């Protein structure tokens, strides 16, 4: 087999925020930004501390090396800030590494986002040509695949309608269809499959595995362990910029899931780094039970409180918070605040979600947090995946859904339900 990608001692360093000013000009620039009330223009990565930064430097990737054979499908997993996106960005030539190099054989196409460069005023047909060219196809190539692309996207009737009139589903389908027909030797895919409806997702996954079958090398980044297991033969696990495991996908995803619960049940952001927009910023998230001490491991008998603390920067912004509970590679459920609310004064506010005891299963969960408006102006203020992880265990000291059954109880939820069991026979 031939090697199609060789990543050699790849490192990427970002210089952070206020520490380590190099030139007077930068200082002037920062000063000027403060005067205009804009955030520090030189600060990078609005992320929490993952422990891989020192002296205002962040090693987003450190000494990563691996090789991929032609036709291999590699899953890249790791927590947020582990370096997955940085790796993809370097592979896609969007940014250059600090040291090390990547050698490649064949044309590479990266799908860091679908619909890159779509112009709302142009029709579906026009955007297919434009987007295809941006992704690296020639005009003849697009023309020869045009019908196939349109058929795959299922938007035949609207080919000559400006895409601004498309539903978001149609938009994403068309965008993915273009990307899926690129026919590169190497394909880099970043969670684009998290979009679209379930049926279309299956179709995309199908297209990707078909690609892999044709001898195409694929790098696939996802938080969806089920998808990784299904698509990839091999996976690597990144943690704080370094590669900590490389092996068969099933083994690596299991390792990732078991290591995911080592956090302490709370995350706080400082003002400069808090995720969100001017309107609303998420300042903290913490998990605790009735004793109000934040923790990341709970008994099935515990009620779990999830407290979101956020700063409202622009009064009268309507929004609601939502939490998505992920476990075992799928979404267990989502919970949203029942209505959108606006606060008349800027400042810190909180929302607490109470998760009843005996709902979650014995498993690791991770939370996605969204703060968004969908009623009037549609906008996402905060949209974070796998912000925090926690674990549910069963101490078996109190009554629970398992009764006296001690073996593994399957499922992503474990509600306490009533069984009506007849003790006298209803028929002989």
């Amino acid at each position, binding site marked *: 087999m031939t090697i199609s990608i060789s990543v050699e001692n790849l490192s990427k360093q970002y210089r952070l925020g206020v520490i380590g000013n190099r030139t007077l*000009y930068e200082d002037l620039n920062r000063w000027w930004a403060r005067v205009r009330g804009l955030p520090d223009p030189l600060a990078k990565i609005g992320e929490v501390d993952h422990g891989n930064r020192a002296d205002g430097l962040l090693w987003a990737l450190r000494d990563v090396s691996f090789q991929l054979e032609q036709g291999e499908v590699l899953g890249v997993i790791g927590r947020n800030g582990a370096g997955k996106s940085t790796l993809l960005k370097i592979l896609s030539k*969007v940014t*250059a590494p600090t040291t*090390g190099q990547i*050698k490649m054989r064949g044309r590479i196409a990266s799908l860091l986002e679908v619909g890159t*460069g779509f112009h709302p005023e142009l029709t579906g047909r026009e955007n297919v040509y434009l987007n295809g060219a941006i*992704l690296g196809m020639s005009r003849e190539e697009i023309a020869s695949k045009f019908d196939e692309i349109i058929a795959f996207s299922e938007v035949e009737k609207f080919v000559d309608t*400006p895409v601004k009139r498309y539903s978001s589903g149609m938009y994403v389908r068309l965008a993915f269809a273009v990307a899926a027909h690129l026919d590169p030797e190497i394909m880099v895919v970043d969670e684009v499959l998290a979009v679209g409806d379930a049926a279309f997702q299956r179709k995309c996954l199908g297209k990707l595995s078909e690609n892999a079958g044709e001898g195409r090398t694929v790098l696939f980044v996802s938080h969806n362990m089920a998808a990784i297991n299904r698509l990839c033969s091999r996976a690597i696990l990144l943690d704080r910029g370094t590669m900590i495991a490389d092996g068969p996908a099933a083994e690596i995803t299991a390792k990732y899931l078991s290591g995911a619960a080592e956090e302490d049940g709370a995350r706080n952001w400082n003002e400069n780094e808090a995720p969100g927009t001017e309107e609303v910023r998420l300042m903290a998230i913490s998990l605790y039970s009735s004793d109000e001490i934040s923790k990341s491991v709970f008994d099935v008998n515990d009620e779990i409180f999830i407290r979101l603390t956020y700063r409202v920067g622009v009064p009268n912004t309507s929004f609601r918070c939502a939490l998505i509970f992920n476990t075992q590679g799928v979404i267990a459920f989502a919970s949203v605040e029942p209505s959108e609310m606006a606060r008349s004064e800027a400042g810190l506010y909180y929302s607490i979600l109470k998760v009843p005891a005996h709902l979650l299963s014995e498993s690791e969960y991770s939370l996605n947090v969204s703060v968004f408006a969908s009623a009037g102006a549609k906008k996402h203020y905060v949209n974070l995946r796998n912000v925090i992880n926690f674990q549910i265990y069963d101490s078996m000291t109190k009554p629970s859904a398992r009764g006296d059954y001690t073996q593994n109880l399957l499922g992503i939820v474990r509600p306490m339900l009533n069984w009506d069991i007849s003790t006298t026979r209803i028929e002989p």
Partner: protein
Amino acid sequence: METKFATEKWTDVIKPQRGWFDWRFRELLRARDLIMLFVWRDFVSVYKQTILGPLWYLIQPLLTTLTFTVIFGRIAALPTDALPDFLFYLSGSVVWSYFAECLNKTSSTFISNSNLFGKVYFPRLAVPVSILISNLIAFAIQFALFLAFAVYYWVVGSEVAPNWSVLLLPFYVLVMAGLGLGFGIIVSALTTRYRDLQFLVRFGVQLAMYATPVIYPLSSIPEKYQLLIIANPMTSIVEGFRYSFLGAGSINPWHLLYSFVFMLISLAIGIMLFNRIETTFMDTV
């Protein structure tokens, strides 16, 4: 060990920094379909969002010229090398606006495309080059307008005397495009670090028009200051254009050569800076 026998066949190597002279023109050439699609997108999207569409290409220079004619021609009564006021200002503003538009639009390449650049790689120079070409469409329309007026004035008997140097038109356009691109991408590379430069540029281009013989002929400048105006690489282009098509003003091969060399140097510096910034700018924007 497996890599050893195959190293010579790598099709692409991603390295920390590119050399200063690694300009990758071939890559840009391969992206010509993309460049033309960008041109077409800019043209179509502008045209789809307005009622008057491409008519704007005509309205803009007409209004500018009218303003110049009233203010500089009638009120300030500046000399126009014996040409009709209107034609004199129209020639100046058509030529100048091509250069100015090229510079203004290319100077925001990184900032206005940061979203696109952050997601997918293609030769970044495709964007500023496409801007030059879409502005060329506008220039062609405006140039046709200018020709129409030139013919009209010639018919009514004004002193309009085109000559063989009209063949220099492609040269004029080349130098203007090159200068606009060169300065534009220098600024665009610098604005990734210092955003305020962008505002400075718009303002600076406006001021630079007054240091170019757009609203006055070079001959009206006192001898001792002429060198100062000639040092501006756009001077010989504007003057030359007017001489070629209208027969007024001056044409000096040395001045034209100076502009050409100036263009090459600014373009080279621009491409070097642009390529340097291209690989790392996503970390700073």
